[in-house]
């Protein structure tokens, strides 16, 4: 089912949770709503589910207006963050609930529930109570319960938030494969960028009730649309620099920035991702025009990538450089040593209108 959200606005008292949010979700997409807490992502999901009503705006499913349709009649599956299983019912009855209230025949219910127990790899556990299951198993019961009513769309609110790290990774790989098999339009909420990028076809980054960026994981990661997105997507080095004539300058090191062709110099923020910086020992010819001298503060080995904390000679700013561990071994850097840092790539954002005095 395709979903379209148009100009959805929602306030709780004086707090504006969503501010004219519009979004299109094509049939079969697995979409992540990514953002910090308070960004409005869960509210948007609840409005799409019909659990919350919007103050303004419209929601259509396959072109049909469902804005005022109660959650009960939406026919969507919803998986709650803390599972929300019915504790007094067995696993079997939990999954059967949606079919029982629809008064489906007993034999059909039995068949469907066993099918789902198999799908979520809980064969033979139908007689257990939710309290006798692990967190990962409970989450799969919640998923089976949501799928039992053959929903048109699956909505998941922080589906892995309450699980420990190892189970979380396993379960999301499994969910991705499940989605590939079923092909149902699915939307999940998360604050974990790694989860969003690993699982989703499309990522929507939200902040303060607005969509900052909407695109494929590659688009969002490679071309962050706003400073917020690049900040949120992981540790990044931020510096004050200047732009003029199609180039940005970071302590005199030029970086191409064709978006600003004007001759007049202007202040800008330069974002340098740790893995897009090169580190070398000083003394390579021509280095001084494109590299910045710095000294090593700390070296933190971590698997494939070694993180080196440095302090720039000019300005004394601290920054991080991610070096492939093989190269780091070759360099054998020690704290206090002098190095040269070369940006391969940078993102430059001009100050927003709020900065203009």
């Amino acid at each position, binding site marked *: *089912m395709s979903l379209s959200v148009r100009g959805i606005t929602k306030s709780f008292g004086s707090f504006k949770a969503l501010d004219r949010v519009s979004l299109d979700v094509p049939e079969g997409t697995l979409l992540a709503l990514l953002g910090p807490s308070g960004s409005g992502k869960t509210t948007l999901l609840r409005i799409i*589910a*019909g*659990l919350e009503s919007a103050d303004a705006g419209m929601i259509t499913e396959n072109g049909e207006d469902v804005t005022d349709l*109660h*959650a*009960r009649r*939406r026919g*969507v*599956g*919803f998986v*709650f963050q*803390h599972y*929300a*299983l*019915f*504790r*007094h019912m067995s696993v079997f009855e939990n999954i059967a*609930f*949606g079919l029982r*209230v*629809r008064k489906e025949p007993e034999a059909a219910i039995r068949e469907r529930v066993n*099918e789902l127990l*198999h*799908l979520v*790899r*809980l064969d033979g556990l139908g007689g*257990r*109570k939710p*309290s*006798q*299951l*692990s967190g*990962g*198993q409970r989450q*799969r019961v919640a998923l089976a*319960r*949501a*799928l*039992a*009513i*053959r*929903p*048109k769309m699956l909505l998941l609110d922080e589906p892995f938030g309450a699980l420990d790290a190892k*189970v979380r990774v*396993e*379960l999301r*790989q*499994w969910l991705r*494969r*499940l989605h590939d*098999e*079923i092909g*149902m339009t699915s939307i999940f909420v998360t604050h974990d960028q790694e989860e969003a990028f690993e699982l989703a076809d499309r990522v929507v980054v939200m902040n303060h009730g607005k969509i900052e960026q909407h695109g494929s994981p590659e688009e969002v990661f490679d071309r962050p649309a706003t400073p917020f997105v690049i900040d949120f997507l992981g540790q990044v080095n931020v510096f004050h620099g200047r732009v003029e004539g199609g180039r940005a300058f970071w302590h005199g090191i030029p970086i191409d920035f064709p978006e600003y062709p004007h001759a007049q110099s202007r202040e800008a923020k330069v974002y340098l991702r740790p893995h897009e910086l090169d580190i070398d020992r000083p003394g390579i010819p021509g280095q001084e025009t494109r590299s910045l001298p710095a000294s090593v503060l700390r070296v933190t080995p971590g698997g494939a990538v070694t993180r080196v904390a440095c302090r720039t000679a000019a300005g004394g700013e601290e920054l991080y450089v991610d070096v492939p561990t093989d190269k780091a071994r070759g360099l054998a850097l020690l704290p206090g040593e002098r190095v040269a840092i070369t940006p391969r790539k940078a993102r430059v954002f001009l100050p927003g209108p709020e900065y203009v005095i």
Partner: protein
Amino acid sequence: MTPESAISIPLDGIRLDNELSLDESLSGLPARRRRAEVLPGFGVSGAITGLVVTALVILPLAVLVLRAASLGPAGFVAAAWTPRARAAYAVSLGASVAAAAISSTLGLVVAWVLARINFPGRRLLDSLVDVPLALPTAVAGLVYSTLYVEKGWLGRYLVPLGFQGAYSRAGIVLVLVFVSLPFAVRVVQPVIESLDRDTEEAARILGASRLQTFFKVVLPAILPAVLTGFALALARSLGEYGSVVFISGNMPFKTEIAPVLIVSRLEEFAYAEATAIAVVLLLLSIGLLVVVNVLQQRVARAAQ
């Protein structure tokens, strides 16, 4: 739309099924070790508990039983199993069970409103619920009988309609509901407040109506508390004397409850007979409460 009917997702290398459930992982542990207590140990608190229970409950009950035993088996039956006494037990038990049933039903509604609905005056209503606990129950009995007699504010409308609220069994139930309602409300209210609202939303989104959601999801979760409230209301009603004595009219075989009969025996200085009736009332009450508690535990286990 969802052709997943017979799909099985291969789980190569993913050990979803090997996660231990809580009790599985616990069962492998060595024998339970004694945990160090944070608060003063069992020695002191246990001694205080034993002393309090003995002095306040066991000792008076023992005296009661001993005094009744002085009648001998034949004398005991003659004193405690007269037609009038049997009628009094029946009125006591019947009115108390009816009152407890009404209190726990109404209490559920009141607790729901107080826990879930925010309206102006909610705090005031919340504190009014406790008033029957503080008010001398004799006052309640007097006020109720004034209201419900034929010429009373309510009685003048209700009596012609056939509802005798004063000097009747209905009157007894009425005051017993008054004195036992706070228990029924206060036991259920915190349980409703702590309910996981997600489960109600989950039920709705799965297609359940409001009624289905209440009866299939909410009620099973709060039923143990409702039954506890029933047991407390029942216990409170069985022992009530002050309010009933003013509203019931105390007609033997009709509206005389066992506690009132005990008092009238005492007024005749028939102390042993009074204790014999008290012992029977006590045994019946204990039996009834045991039944309710067993039921409550079963429901609680099912609701886990």
